[in-house]
C-alpha cells in the first residue's frame, strides 16, 4: 500500500523532485500532501511529506524555500482540524508544537493519506497518534406551480387596480386612438391617386393608342402632348407619397409611445395586484393555509399576476388597437359605399359567431388543461421536498411513472384544445378570404354599374384586407384572454376570501397582559366535525398547565384557539377577564410565545432567526436568550457563530438545535403567555434534558400551556388537564391523577411499560429528580 501511494504521488506531483535534494541517500517519500496555503495563510503551494525516517515540509515550492524536517521519533502526534473551510495540520512533539500548516478544504482529502501513513508508522513503533475528520449534509430545494377554469368578466374586476393610474390609462388610450387613426390614412390617399391622376391619364393614353383614324407619327405626337399635360397632375404624386410616409411615421411613433405607457401601466397594476394579494394572504387565518397547498398560493401570487401583466401590456393593447381599427375601417367603408360595405362585411357575423362558440369550447379545454397541469405540479411539490423518503423506499421509478402518467394527461387535454384551436383560426382566415372575394365580385358589379370608381374600389380593397387581418389577430387573442381570465379568477378567489378571524369593531388594546386565561364552555368544529366540546378551565397568571391525551384528542386545536389562529364555535376564551376577540389580533399575539414540535426557521442568520419576533433586539439580548435556551454553545461551534446562515450547506441544524433556537426566539419576546406544543417529542432523551432545562427558564413567571407526549416533561406542571375526544376528562396534579386511576394513569402506565421493555428508547419513566439534571449538564464553574 505504501508502495502504491509512493508511485501515485511521484507520478502526480513532479514537485516531489524539488524535495529530492533534501533527502538522505536511500530515503523514500511514503506519502505527501500538497498545501495551498503558506504559514501566513497566503495562497502558495507547499508540501508536507513523510518518509520512513522523517516528517519533512517545504513552505514555498515555487521559491524552494522554507524547508524543515523532523525525525519521526520527535513527532508524537499529527492532527488535522478544520473550521470554516480552513484546514490546519499540526505536528506535536514531546515539548510542544513542532509545526503548523494550513490548507483549504479542497485539499483535505490528501491529508488523510499522510495521517494514515503516519498512523501506520506509529503502529510499527507502538506510539499512539490522532486524526480528525468532518461531515457534510444535504438539503433539497422546493419547486411548484399549478392552474384552473375561467370567465372573461373577471377581467373587468382588474379595473379596481387601474383606478390609481387613471391619468396614465387615459394617455395610453389617447395614444392608441391617434396611432390607429394614423394607420387609417394611407389607403385613403390611394383613392385620389388612382381616380384623379392615374385613371384619367391611362384612359386618354388608351384612347390615343387605339384611335384607328390617325397615323403613327400623329399618334406619337398625341401621346407626347398627353405626357406634357400630365406633368401637372403627376406633380401631386410625391405629395401623396409624402402623406403616406408621414402617416406611417406618425403611426410608428404613437404606437411606440402607446406601448411604453401601457407596459408601464400594466407593470404597476400587476405589482399592486401582487402586493394586495400577498398582504391579504397574511390576513387570512390558519385554516385557509391548512386547506390550501403552498405551491398553489405561490403560483397565484407569482405566475398568475405575471400572466395578467402580460395580458394587460400585450394582448389588451393589441386588442384595443384592433377593435378601434375595425370600427374605424368599417366607418370608412360605409362612407365610401354603404352597399358595398354591407355586402363585403356579410361574413363578419359568421366570424363573430364562430369566435363566440369556439371560445366556450376553448375555455372548457383550457380548464381541463389547467387541472391536468395542477395535478402534475402537485406531484412535483410533493415529491421534490420528500425526495429523501422516495429514495429511502427506492420508489424513484414509480414516481417517474406517476409523473409521466400525469404529463400524458396534460398532453391529452392540450391535444383536444389544440384540435379546436388549430381548426378555428384557419377557418377564420378562410372566411376572411371569402369576404375578400365577395368584395371583388360586388366591387366589379358596382364599377360596372358606374356607381363607384376604380379608385374607390382600390382603397376599399386595401381597407378590407386590413380589416380581415385585424379580425384574424383579434380572434387569435381569444386564447390568451381566456388564460388571463383564468388567472384573474384565481387571484380574486384569494382576495374574496374574508379573514375568518375577524378584527374587532371596537378593539380594546390588550397592552401587556397579566396572563390569566379562562376558557368558558369552549366548543369548536371543523366543518360539521366536533373537535372540542364544552371545555372550561381557568388558569392563574404564572401557572403552568400541562395538556395530555391521546392523539387526535384536540390538544393542538385547543392551543390554536388560545392563540386565536381560529375562533371558537361556542363559548368564549377570556384573557385577563376580556374576550380575546375584542383584542386586535396582532397586539394580542405579541403577548404570546410559541414553540412548536417542528420549529420553522427562516432563511437568514441565526441572529436574525432568534430576533424574528423583535428585530430591534441587541446582540447582548440575543446572546442572553440563546444562553437561556441552551443554544449559545452550539451556535459558537458554527463557522460564523451567530452570523451563520441557517440552512446553508454544512450548517444544517439538527432537530434539537432548531428546537433550541425556536425556544430562544420565543424567549426573546418575553411573552406573558407561553404555548408549547410537543416541543421535545422529536429529540433524544439527552437533548430533551437540555431543552427541558431551557424550557424551565422560559416557563418561569409566565402562564404556560404545554402539550407533552412524554408525560415526564410535565413534571413541573402545577396542573395537568387530560383531554379525550374533545372533552376534559380529568384535571389535577400528577399524584392526584395517578391516585384517581383514570385515563392519565393508564397513559402513564402504558408509557412506563414501554419504557421498561425498550429501555433508552423513549422518555425516562420517572420524572427526573433535580440531581439527574445537574449531572446531565456538566458543571463548568471554572471562573468566578
Amino acid at each position, binding site marked *: 500500500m505504501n508502495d502504491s501511494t509512493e508511485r501515485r504521488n511521484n507520478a502526480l506531483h513532479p514537485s516531489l523532485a524539488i524535495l529530492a535534494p533534501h533527502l538522505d541517500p536511500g530515503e523514500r517519500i511514503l506519502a505527501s500532501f500538497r498545501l495551498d*496555503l503558506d504559514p501566513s495563510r497566503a495562497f502558495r503551494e507547499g508540501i508536507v511529506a513523510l518518509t520512513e525516517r522523517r516528517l519533512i515540509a517545504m513552505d514555498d515550492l515555487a521559491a524552494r524555500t522554507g524547508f524543515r524536517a523532523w525525525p519521526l521519533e520527535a513527532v508524537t502526534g499529527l492532527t488535522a482540524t478544520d473550521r470554516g*473551510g480552513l484546514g490546519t495540520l499540526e505536528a506535536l512533539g514531546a515539548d510542544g508544537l513542532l509545526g503548523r500548516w494550513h490548507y*483549504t478544504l479542497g485539499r483535505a482529502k490528501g491529508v488523510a493519506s499522510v495521517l494514515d501513513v503516519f498512523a501506520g508508522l506509529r503502529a510499527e513503533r507502538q506510539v499512539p497518534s490522532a486524526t480528525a475528520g468532518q461531515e457534510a449534509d444535504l438539503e433539497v430545494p422546493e419547486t411548484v406551480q399549478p392552474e384552473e377554469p375561467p370567465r372573461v368578466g373577471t377581467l373587468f374586476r382588474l379595473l379596481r387596480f387601474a383606478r390609481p393610474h387613471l391619468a396614465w390609462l387615459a394617455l395610453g388610450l389617447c395614444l392608441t386612438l391617434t396611432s390607429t387613426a394614423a394607420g387609417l390614412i394611407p389607403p385613403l390617399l390611394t383613392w385620389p391617386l388612382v381616380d384623379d391622376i392615374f385613371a384619367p391619364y391611362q384612359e386618354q393614353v388608351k384612347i390615343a393608342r387605339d384611335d384607328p383614324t390617325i397615323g403613327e407619327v400623329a399618334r406619337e405626337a398625341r401621346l407626347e402632348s398627353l405626357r406634357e399635360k400630365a406633368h401637372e397632375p403627376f406633380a401631386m404624386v410625391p405629395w401623396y407619397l409624402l402623406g403616406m410616409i408621414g402617416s406611417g411615421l406618425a403611426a410608428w411613433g404613437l404606437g411606440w409611445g402607446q406601448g411604453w405607457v401601457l407596459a408601464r401601466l400594466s407593470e404597476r397594476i400587476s405589482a399592486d395586484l401582487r402586493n394586495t394579494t400577498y398582504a391579504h394572504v397574511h390576513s387570512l387565518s390558519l385554516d385557509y393555509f391548512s386547506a390550501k397547498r403552498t405551491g398553489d398560493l405561490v403560483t397565484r401570487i407569482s405566475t398568475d399576476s405575471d400572466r395578467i401583466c402580460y395580458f394587460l401590456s400585450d394582448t389588451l393593447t393589441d386588442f384595443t388597437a384592433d377593435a378601434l381599427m375595425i370600427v374605424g375601417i368599417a366607418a370608412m367603408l360605409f362612407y365610401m359605399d354603404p352597399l358595398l360595405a354591407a355586402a363585403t362585411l356579410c361574413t363578419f357575423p359568421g366570424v363573430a359567431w364562430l369566435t363566440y362558440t369556439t371560445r366556450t369550447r376553448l375555455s372548457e379545454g383550457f380548464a381541463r388543461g389547467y387541472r391536468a397541469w395542477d395535478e402534475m405540479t402537485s406531484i412535483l411539490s410533493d415529491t421534490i421536498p420528500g425526495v429523501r423518503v422516495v429514495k429511502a423506499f427506492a420508489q424513484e421509478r414509480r414516481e417517474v411513472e406517476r409523473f409521466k402518467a400525469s404529463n400524458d394527461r396534460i398532453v391529452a387535454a392540450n391535444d383536444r384544445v389544440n384540435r379546436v384551436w388549430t381548426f378555428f383560426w384557419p377557418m377564420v382566415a378562410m372566411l376572411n378570404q371569402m369576404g375578400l372575394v365577395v368584395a371583388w365580385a360586388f366591387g366589379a358589379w358596382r364599377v360596372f354599374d358606374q356607381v363607384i370608381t376604380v379608385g374607390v374600389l382600390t382603397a376599399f380593397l386595401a381597407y378590407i384586407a386590413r380589416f380581415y387581418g385585424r379580425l384574424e389577430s383579434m380572434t387569435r387573442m381569444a386564447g390568451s384572454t381566456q388564460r388571463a381570465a383564468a388567472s384573474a379568477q384565481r387571484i380574486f378567489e384569494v382576495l374574496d376570501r374574508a379573514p375568518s378571524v375577524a378584527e374587532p369593531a371596537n378593539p380594546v388594546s390588550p397592552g401587556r397582559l397579566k396572563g390569566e386565561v379562562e376558557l368558558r364552555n369552549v366548543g369548536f368544529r371543523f366543518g360539521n366535525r366536533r373537535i372540542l366540546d364544552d371545555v372550561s378551565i381557568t388558569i392563574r397568571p404564572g401557572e403552568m398547565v400541562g395538556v395530555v391525551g391521546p392523539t387526535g384528542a384536540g390538544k393542538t386545536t385547543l392551543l390554536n384557539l388560545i392563540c386565536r389562529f381560529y375562533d371558537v364555535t361556542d363559548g368564549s376564551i377570556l384573557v385577563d377577564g376580556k374576550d380575546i376577540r375584542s383584542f386586535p389580533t396582532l397586539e394580542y399575539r405579541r403577548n404570546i410565545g410559541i414553540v412548536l414540535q417542528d420549529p420553522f426557521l427562516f432563511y437568514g442568520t441565526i441572529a436574525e432567526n432568534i430576533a424574528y419576533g423583535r428585530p430591534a433586539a441587541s446582540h447582548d439580548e440575543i*446572546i442572553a436568550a440563546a444562553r437561556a435556551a441552551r443554544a449559545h454553545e452550539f451556535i459558537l*461551534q458554527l463557522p460564523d457563530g451567530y*452570523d451563520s*446562515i441557517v440552512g446553508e*450547506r454544512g450548517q444544517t441544524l439538527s432537530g434539537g438545535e432548531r428546537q433550541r433556537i425556536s425556544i430562544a426566539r420565543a424567549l426573546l419576546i418575553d411573552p406573558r403567555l407561553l404555548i408549547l406544543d410537543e416541543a421535545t417529542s422529536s429529540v433524544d432523551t439527552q437533548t430533551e434534558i437540555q431543552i427541558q432545562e431551557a424550557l424551565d427558564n422560559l416557563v418561569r413567571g409566565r402562564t404556560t400551556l404545554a402539550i407533552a407526549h412524554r408525560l415526564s416533561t410535565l413534571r413541573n406542571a402545577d396542573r395537568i388537564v387530560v383531554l379525550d375526544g374533545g372533552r376534559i376528562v380529568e384535571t389535577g396534579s400528577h399524584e392526584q391523577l395517578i391516585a384517581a386511576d383514570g385515563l392519565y394513569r393508564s397513559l402513564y402506565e402504558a408509557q412506563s411499560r414501554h419504557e421498561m421493555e425498550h429501555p433508552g428508547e423513549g422518555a425516562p419513566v420517572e420524572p427526573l429528580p433535580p440531581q439527574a439534571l445537574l449531572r446531565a449538564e456538566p458543571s*463548568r464553574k471554572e*471562573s468566578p
Partner: protein
Amino acid sequence: MTTDLTSGDAAALALHVDAFGRMVMALPGAAPVVNVVPVRCFPFTSPTQRVSLCDPQGHEVACITDLADLDPGVRSLLEQELSRREFVPTIRRILDISQGSEPTAWHVETDRGEVRFVLTSEDHVRRLGLNGVLISDAEGVRYRVLDTRALDPQGKKLLKRYL
C-alpha cells in the same frame, strides 16, 4: 455558569500561548484554563464585540463583551489567535468568472494572493451588510468583498450577475 467579562474583568484577563501552541487563559483568583479557543459570536456584524473563549469541548468559559476593554498586549495576542483560526480572504480584484451555467470558475486576486475556485451555486453568494459580499466556494472556503463599490468596473460587472 459562564462569565461575561465587562470592562474591569476584561482588563484583568491574562492570556498566553504555551509551548504546544495552546492558549492559556487566566483570571485573578481562578485556576488557569488551558487550551481555550477564542470565537467571535458575530464575526461579520460586530467582530470586535462579544468574543467567546471556549474549552476544547466547545463549552464557553468566558465571554469578552468588548475587545477594547482588554489590555493591549492581551488583545493583540487574542486577535492574532482569532485571525489564525479565521480564514476568509478578502477579494480585491475579480479577474474572471467563467460564463455559462453553474458551476462557475472564478479567478480572483485576494489579500492572500491570486486564487481560482469553483462556485457551485449562486446561492453561495450572499450579501453582508450594505455593500459587502460573502462567497462560499465548492470547498467551503469563504471569500469576502468588503465593499463592492471599491471593485474595478470589470469586477463590478462580473459580480453584478450574482447580486
